[in-house]
């Protein structure tokens, strides 16, 4: 089958396609500069082998189990929980292919409301225009709460005076057109040093939520602060600046407890208990998944959502969020049952 004459010893070089005599193709050159043509069939065989190698490495297929696809996209805040659930789910059902994207809550809803995805991770409730979009496209959906997050306002470790602030004080600092420059402007008796503010960028669900509950209107905020979409950058900034203040998701505070001081809001310090009970108010926020009702009729999607609610308590705490009460998960499951599925 192979017409090429391979040299018996010595290093072999493969050339680019070139013409020699009447042959054109890949050439082999041995150490004595003797050329022999690499036949087309050999090249083809190698290519086919490569393709098989690349494609043959698919995961194990569970012949008897569930099969199908579960397409998820949306918030980067909810991503770690959904990733954890998918990881566990795939171990039990290797035949189901779960994919999770990271387009952000808003970007994810665009895909969800046009029917491109089955589930959307959301760090805020669906907006009115998104609901309208869904109705227009005939998409029916169900909202499930899977965990809590507590937006945490943090200051530098050396800051020993700002331990507690009220919502009103936070609003004074962060509202559009805020006149607050120094700590003294917030409360008399605090030092007369300039505050350095850090916060998430305007695309983030964290920004949307914070501005809504603190400043009273979504997306209304002062903009002369250091903004970053990467919460770790905010953490680092606050760690390195004595007079820094900033806000981000609870997980970023709880992972950096030794390096940051957290501010109690209206006298309540964020921790698992106060966030779960809602006592850490108003900065404790629910995290959602939105499920397409039509997709729910598919067996593998139903299994995935059931699995999600069964394990969300344990898995969300593992990745740094706060679980709902047990009864609340039961309530979410009841929402599903109400749909008249199996």
């Amino acid at each position, binding site marked *: 089958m192979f017409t090429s004459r391979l040299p018996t010893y010595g290093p072999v070089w493969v050339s680019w396609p070139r013409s020699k005599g009447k042959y054109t193709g890949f050439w082999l050159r041995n150490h004595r500069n003797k050329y022999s043509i690499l036949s087309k069939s050999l090249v083809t065989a190698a290519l086919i082998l490569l393709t098989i190698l*690349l494609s043959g490495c698919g995961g194990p297929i569970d012949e008897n189990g569930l099969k199908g696809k579960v397409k998820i996209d949306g918030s980067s805040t909810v*991503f770690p929980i959904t990733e954890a659930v998918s990881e566990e789910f795939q171990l039990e059902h290797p035949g189901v292919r779960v994919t999770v*994207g990271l387009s952000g809550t808003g970007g994810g809803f665009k895909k969800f409301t046009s029917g491109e995805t089955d589930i959307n991770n959301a760090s805020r409730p669906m907006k009115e225009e998104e609901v309208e979009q869904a109705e227009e496209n005939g998409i029916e959906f169900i909202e499930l709460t899977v965990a809590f997050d507590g937006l945490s306002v943090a200051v530098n470790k050396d800051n020993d005076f700002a331990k507690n602030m009220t919502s009103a004080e936070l609003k004074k600092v962060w509202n559009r057109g805020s006149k607050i420059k120094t700590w003294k402007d917030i409360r008399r008796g605090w030092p007369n040093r300039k505050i350095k503010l850090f916060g998430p960028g305007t695309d983030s669900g964290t920004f949307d939520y914070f501005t809504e509950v603190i400043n009273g209107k979504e997306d209304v905020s002062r903009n002369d602060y250091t903004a970053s979409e990467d919460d*770790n950058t905010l953490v680092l900034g606050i760690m390195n600046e004595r007079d820094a203040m900033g806000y981000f998701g609870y*997980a970023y505070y709880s992972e950096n407890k030794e390096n940051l001081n957290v501010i109690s809001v209206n006298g309540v310090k964020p921790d698992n208990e106060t966030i779960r009970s809602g006592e850490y108010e108003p900065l404790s926020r629910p995290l959602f998944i939105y499920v397409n009702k039509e997709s729910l009729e598919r067996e593998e999607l139903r299994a995935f959502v059931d699995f999600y609610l069964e394990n969300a308590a344990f898995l969300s705490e593992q990745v740094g969020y706060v679980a709902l009460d047990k009864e609340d998960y039961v309530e979410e499951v009841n929402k599903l049952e109400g749909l008249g599925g199996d």
Partner: protein
Amino acid sequence: MNANLSAGQSSTRKVKDRLFQALCIGAIIFSLGALAGLLLDVVISGLPSLSWHFFTNFASRFPEKAGIKAAIYGTLWMMSLTASFCIPIGIATAIYLEEYAGDSRLARIIKLNIANLAGVPSIVYGFLGLAIFVRMLQFDRSVLSGALTMALLVMPIVIVSAQEAIRAVPLSLREGSYALGATRWQTTRRVVLPAAVSGIATGVILALSRAIGETAPLIMIGALTFIAFVPDGPMAPFTALPIQIFNWISRPQAGFHDIAAAAVLVLLLFIFIMNAAASILRHRYDRRWQD
């Protein structure tokens, strides 16, 4: 000018000369130092996480169990498809522009625009890919969409470098070929292309090593982040190394930052191998052409 040569000013000229030299050396130290610092940081935090299972595991919520199998397969799939789109089209375009198009007004406009396209921010190609490949042609968020977007992104680089390589082939070689009665196609195929192949190959590899590190257009077209299987065809969903790195680096847990550094090392290794291949190719074929 003559006044500058007078004896009184020669010392200031020498001082200026020294100053400029010092400035250049300073610039080198600064850029290399920053690079070395960055590399050292990545190696220190990433090296301990590099192990066999880092390559054979899928992403996980436990940093110590997480791996880059899906990302590596996705990157390989995407790059091989990107190469198979952009190499033939890019080289054919360059041949047309250099050998056939002549110097018409239209050809000049096209050449100028291709050079401009090379400077368009990558996220713009992401939008284009999302609109055309994902939505209009319904390729979905597949390897194919990613590869086509990447091919568009690096095509200008391939075309421009192939054009330069073809232009560098001496006119006398072509004329010799024509004198022997060869047609334009025969001349291009048997004389011009073999003479230009090292330049073209170098350009192609450098273009591909740019594509392998691009993140923004992939995120734009909606390449995925968590995926626990490897692509089984051009229509399969996928993730790629830069996306995996981007995701891990923004996690709160420090463990993820370390494996992000490890993934950066793997990506650097890929790019290093490709650049080494480019310089070896250039070296080998430049010599070959002389004998």
